[in-house]
């Protein structure tokens, strides 16, 4: 059975793996520097001293270590690269779900914020639509019912209700307003007819 991982958990796991890979890389690079310093000390010794002491043997061992460490560092760097991409990928998904996006560049982040802020809100869309509906209803219904409807829609938005609540309310209100206009016309005709 596959286990679903939330975007936040995936991002946290990738970030933890990246930290671990970076720590390993740093440890190996410190070891390489230390071995290089040891080798430099051996290299500075006169040849006869190196021949008379175990220094040369030690230097050969250090050279072997350096080679192995260099290979490990390459692997560690690859790991860091892979996890950096994973963090980036996880973060991209995470920002689409409305969360925080730590590695996002300022320009990209500003563009995303701008596109969200400049999009017309549900209230603005519903208001425009009701202004069109207003052309087909009587002036009294427009002032009274459409006005009340706009108050309700603003209240919904202030309460943080989902967009579809606003749209459904606007549509049903508009249908009722049209219906009531015809009802009023019919009632006035009946009154005239006596």
């Amino acid at each position, binding site marked *: 059975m596959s286990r679903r991982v939330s975007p936040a958990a995936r991002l946290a796991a990738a970030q933890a793996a990246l930290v671990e890979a970076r720590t390993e890389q740093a440890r190996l690079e410190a070891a390489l520097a230390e071995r290089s310093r040891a080798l430099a000390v051996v290299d500075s010794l006169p040849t006869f001293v190196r021949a008379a002491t175990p220094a040369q043997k030690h230097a050969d061992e250090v050279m072997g270590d350096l080679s192995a460490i260099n290979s490990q560092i390459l692997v560690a760097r690859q790991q860091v690269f892979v996890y950096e991409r994973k963090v980036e990928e996880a973060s991209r998904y995470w920002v689409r779900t409305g969360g925080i996006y730590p590695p996002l560049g300022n320009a990209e982040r500003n563009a995303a914020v701008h596109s969200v802020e400049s999009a017309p809100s549900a209230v603005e869309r519903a*208001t425009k639509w009701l202004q069109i509906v207003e052309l087909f209803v009587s002036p009294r219904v*427009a002032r009274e019912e459409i006005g009340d409807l706009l*108050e309700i829609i603003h209240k919904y938005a202030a309460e943080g209700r989902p967009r579809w609540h606003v749209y459904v309310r606007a549509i049903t209100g508009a249908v*009722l307003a049209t219906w*009531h206009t015809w009802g009023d016309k019919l*009632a006035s005709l009946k009154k005239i007819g006596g």
Partner: protein
Amino acid sequence: METFVNAKTAVLQALIRGPSFGLELIERVKTSTGGKVELNQGSVYPALRAMERDGLVESYDDDEVIPERGGRPRRSYKITAEGIRAARDTQKAAFGLFQLAEVKG
């Protein structure tokens, strides 16, 4: 929710407490009946206009400016003397009906 009173009766009773407009009347009826009677816009506005035609209520535009309404004034309603008489008659009739139910029960 199905209610045991019609919109006209409920709104007329609510207007005895003072002038009001559509949305507030819906809320007033709901609050005063403890949520037992919930009116909707579909029934309140036709009821108000029908009662206005019958001379039970009068309507006027409020001076208060509400930005959300985009310049549309609120339409308020107040009960007329005839409306008060009609409301009292309804109250008496309902009271008689409930007394009868109490005796029989």
